[in-house]
């Protein structure tokens, strides 16, 4: 084994705050441990995904973590992206109490479709999908509080 490889491993450990790492190659065994308890790595399902709202700063795009955190598993599953909340406020699934929700599971969405409203300081902010595809999961209950960066929907992109 070359020292350069070891050096690379050490750099990876430092960069990722690992304090333990074990690799056995024959039969494969990998153990990684970090100091502060944190998930180690997210396998990124797809390089690009978007969320947007009108007249609001756009939250950072964030692909959904694959349900199984291994590359192998991710390949078998549909790649989902999250629509995240770009603001703090109260989540409304529908434009008014008696109306139908903007979207439900299996609803098709286009990038510019409104998917929900988030009320902040008495202002109703329409949140747009930012991605075209099919809603696979609604993550937040109607009327509940959401924080910045919270995932609202999972969408399977086209």
């Amino acid at each position, binding site marked *: 084994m070359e020292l350069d490889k070891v050096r690379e491993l050490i750099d990876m450990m430092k960069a990722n*705050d690992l304090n333990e790492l074990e690799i056995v190659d024959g039969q494969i065994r990998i153990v990684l441990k970090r*100091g*502060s308890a944190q998930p180690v790595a997210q396998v990124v399902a797809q390089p690009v995904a978007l969320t947007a709202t009108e007249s609001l*700063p756009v939250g*950072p795009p964030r692909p959904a973590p694959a349900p199984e955190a291994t590359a192998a598993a991710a390949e078998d599953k549909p790649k989902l992206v999250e629509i995240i909340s770009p*603001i*703090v*406020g*109260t989540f409304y699934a529908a434009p008014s109490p008696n109306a139908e929700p903007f979207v439900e599971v299996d609803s098709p969405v286009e990038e510019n479709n409104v998917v929900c409203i988030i009320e*902040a*300081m008495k202002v109703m902010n329409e949140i747009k999908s930012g991605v075209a595809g099919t809603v696979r999961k609604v993550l937040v209950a109607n009327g509940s*509080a959401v*924080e*910045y*960066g*919270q995932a609202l929907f999972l969408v399977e992109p086209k």
Partner: protein
Amino acid sequence: MFSRILIANRGEIAQRIIRACREMGVQTVAVYSEADRHARYLPLADETICIGPADPAESYLNIPRIISAAEITNVEAIHPGYGFLAESAQFAEICRDCKIQFIGPDPESMRVLGDKVEARKLAARAKVPIAPGSEESVPTEDEAARLAAQIGYPVILKAAAGGGGRGMRIAHNEMSLRVAFHSAQTEAASAFKKSDVYLEKYLEQARHVEVQILADRAGNAIHLWERDCSLQRRHQKLIEETPSPALKADLRDQLCKAALRLAKAANYVNAGTVEFLLDKDQKFYFSEANTRIQVEHPVTELVTGVDLVQWQLRIASGEPIKLRQKDIGQNGAAIECRINAEDPANGFSPCPGRIERFFAPGGPGVRLDCHVHAGYEISSRYDSLIGKLIVHRRTRAEAIACMKRALEEFEIGPIKTTIPLYLEIMSHRQFVKGHVDTGFIERTW
């Protein structure tokens, strides 16, 4: 008393407010930016809520997000800490409009004291001495030159909306004044969105001495004695102490009474600080007023035994001050060192990065207000203050000895901190004698 408040700040002051609330049985909602997600004080709050990315404009300075967080968490009040929105009269006003109690003074008091020109006028009316200077902000270079000639050099130009040393320029003659006038205006405009500057006589070898006050809505107002914050670098305080080694009893008394007069004149409510400059002839002049809790409040807490943050909450919730002036003692001496992630040997340049080694001092006389620990990542986005080491002993000499040994025990690495500089200061003949002024650190290091 409130049952639930929101803390619109981060770091050691957010932790300080959480501690006060826990001891009072008040629930807390802590907001945080994505950069502070792993802060160890967050789990000590009853609820936490992410309000935005690391950029302060998108989180700790973002009024809609903070108000929105307060609304969805149903808090009765907001504590702004220091920095960020703490001195924003606009924020205090929005809180009032939203029926959320701002834990601080009324927006009207904040506005008059926040405008340095207005504050000077108010001080003059309250018979608080002010340094010779312009009555209004100075509109033109020529007007500044005319005034300076009348007052006599050196003079100092200050931003009317200023604070934290920005927008300040000292001029020793007309030529330097004319240059400084424009740079001060530009800096004021960029820092405070208001280019107004005013001009004052510059006091050489002056000490910075400030008075802590507490005032309630029922009209009770007390002072909690002074703090000497003469150890500064570029107008930023590094070491604070109380009592001031420069004050005799009668001067101390005059200073504290002047501070109370100004507070009354401004209809001040809650905790506040009136800052003075004390010149080499023992004359004092009003400098500015801070309408919030100060970084250096612990030294006052230690010698008076009064928890200032707890009183901020009580006053804001409408309780009257039950402390009587005659019961507020100055017991012993207290010193605070601000531990900054900066390299004093390299122009105090900030040293963000990960703390690998962290061993805190302890034992008798030592208080540590610190939110960092081994494994903590210091973000370059925020202030370099990573903690405050405060000591309390029976005498100033004992407090210096205690601070010295506590600094020697304190190990933070591999990032650089101001600890080595403070160790030198604690042993410096002039500091030990108490003979320092606001230029001491810059002249000596």
